[in-house]
């Protein structure tokens, strides 16, 4: 039963005990076993039970993806691993802060593009804007690419947060 060698991208939600070292365990697993991390976000989501949710975007062959899930489940403080890509439709969002500088001639164009992408201005000076933008990774990439020639000087991105569609948990 040879697994096909196609590389797939998967978004996973990992529920963990919020305790010291838990993120190091997850990251160490990926680096130690040579798995790929495209994006990783973590924050406490259930303060009452001291649980954090880690959202990981990774890629690999189906056999590797299965391994990643099994290995994650083996970590003692991991409560559960949900492969959102496999379990059904889900929503994923990322937030970016983008700083753009430029002369008077490009300021109008900068604002016009931001408007098209529904990016919000969160800081402005005579020389610069900081835009806040939320959306899929692809949408953020497209906006940044368009802004690049207009003078992008710095970018901060949160990485992907994801949740399943519908009433089910995860």
């Amino acid at each position, binding site marked *: *039963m*040879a*697994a096909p060698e196609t590389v797939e991208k998967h978004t996973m939600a990992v529920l*963990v*005990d919020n305790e*010291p*070292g838990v993120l*190091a*365990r997850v990251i*160490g697993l990926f680096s*130690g076993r040579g798995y790929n991390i495209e994006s990783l976000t973590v924050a406490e989501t259930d303060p009452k039970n001291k649980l954090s949710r880690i959202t990981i975007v990774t890629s690999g062959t189906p*056999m590797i993806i*299965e*391994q990643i899930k*099994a*290995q994650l*489940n*083996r970590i*003692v*403080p*991991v*409560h559960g691993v949900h492969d959102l890509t496999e379990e059904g439709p889900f929503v994923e969002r990322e937030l970016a802060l983008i700083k753009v500088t430029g002369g008077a001639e490009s300021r109008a164009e900068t604002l016009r593009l931001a408007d098209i992408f529904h990016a919000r201005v969160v800081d402005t000076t005579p020389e610069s804007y900081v835009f806040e933008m939320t959306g899929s990774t692809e949408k953020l990439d497209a906006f940044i690419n368009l802004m690049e020639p207009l003078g992008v000087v710095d970018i901060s991105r949160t990485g992907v947060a994801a949740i399943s569609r519908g009433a089910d948990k995860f």
Partner: protein
Amino acid sequence: MAVQPATHELSGAEMVIRALVDQGVDVVFGYPGGAVLPIYDALFKQNRLRHILVRHEQGAVHAAEGYARSSGKVGVVLVTSGPGATNAVTGLTDALMDSVPIVCLTGQVPTHLIGNDAFQEADTTGITRPCTKHNYLVKDVNDLARVIHEAFMIARTGRPGPVVVDLPKDMLFATGLYLPPETAPTRKSYRPQIKPPATRITGAAQLIMAAKKPLFYGGGGLINSGPRACALFSELVRLTGFPVTLTLMGLGAYPASDKQYLGLVGMHGTFESNNAMHDCDLMINIGARFDDRVTGKVAAFAPHSRKIHVDIDPSSINKNVGVDLAIVGDCAEVLAALIAELKAQVYKADPARIAPWWRQIETWRKRDCLRYVKSDTIIKPQYAIERLYALTRDRDVFITTEVGQHQMWAAQLFKFDKPFHWMTSGGLGTMGYGLPAAMGVQLAHPDALVVDIAGEASILMNIQEMSTVCQYRLPVKVFILNNQYMGMVRQWQELLHGGRYSESYTAALPDFVKLAEAFGAVGLRAEKPGEVDRIINEMIAVDRPVIVDVQVDPKENCFPMIPSGAAHNEMLLGPEDKQTSGPVSEEGMVLV
């Protein structure tokens, strides 16, 4: 120390002792140092725990491994901070690879100094994270007892493994309430799957009933699961009449002297085992993990077979080899369910269905792949092991090994009819494992004959433990097959690197007889085949630690051998095969 009531406030150090006693520990392997002095002080005041003072912390972990693997209990290690903990890392990695239950308590600098590069400070939880099943840093004395109980539970349940508990020195002085094991809360996120799903059992039974060329492939999971799993495994093998092979870690799970047993599988496995694995139509893997030493070239591994894989660790499934039917669960539970299912189906072994398969296996067996050219003038290493087996087989004998050619010859030629009598470093391949492991075995089985089959290179890696063995009058026997080379390195250099023996010869070896005497042990030497029996008998008769220096043929190679990158049906059977087969492929060269 009298055991005090649980409501009484205890110091952290007293809690450690109390928790170990409550976990049923009787022996601790350790080495003191600044950060663990409070625990040593508490040890001094009690008589429930026996402390064995090793000579190096690596030895402590291997000793605990030998103790654990031969007794089925958790092995316990106590070391200090910094170098104490880093010295233990090789042993912990070894225990992780071979799934040995160990709890290792490490000292740590006081919490207010953590991160300050204090004297003998190391980031122990950081360093040991990838080489433990789980680890802890205790930062509140009221967590201490719970953490130690949890560490034992995690070490011994599911797929067993090593657990580190890092104890800052101030936690050992602080006082708090002690929680006994039964009142300590359990961990919600940790739920090993023990019971197999029923549908998978039915599926496996159907495959078994239809197979024409089946093979059981048993591994270390059977040993870890315990005597019940090994007994049920033997029952299932006999019920079906199928052939059975075992991995290095599984030796003893099925009696080696039984006719259904084909011998060791893998790189240095028997011709019949490896060919059966290559040609089978149904492989039933119970508690083995398709290690690369077993599979050889994965693309050519058992190409015509359907595969059933039973493992307690879901991450072992489809890791190296894709399987058709995976059953996650404890070996004993799966085997019991499978036997019950087969009996419910009124299954009877059908010798006619598998008779052609057995005829084929017998032709492979006739190759007598473990034969070697005997000599009257020089001791062949295989001969030394055969004689050791012959002269000790009527006793309760436990064998440990170091790593290399001697280990493979021991695995091929020493016949284990019972589980828990064979201790070896399989996954990590740690030279220096055997002597400290033998020490641990002897402590668990004081009256048994414990022999470390060693090489002269490996034994020097933890030779300092001879001092421990002598201190505690443990009558461990070190049986060195001395060929003056790192034999397996020399063999690979001969076969793969044009006979350029780069750094594999040990000049200036010690005189092992005098070395034994210097430690206070007995030294014996055999130089001619005629001396071997007398020396072995003398070794057994002496009720003290012994080092035997058996001077063997330095040029002997270990066969059969699957060259790296080759398939199971491309084995080298002996020196005469070397010339006929082509050079090892470049792809194979890069493999270890």
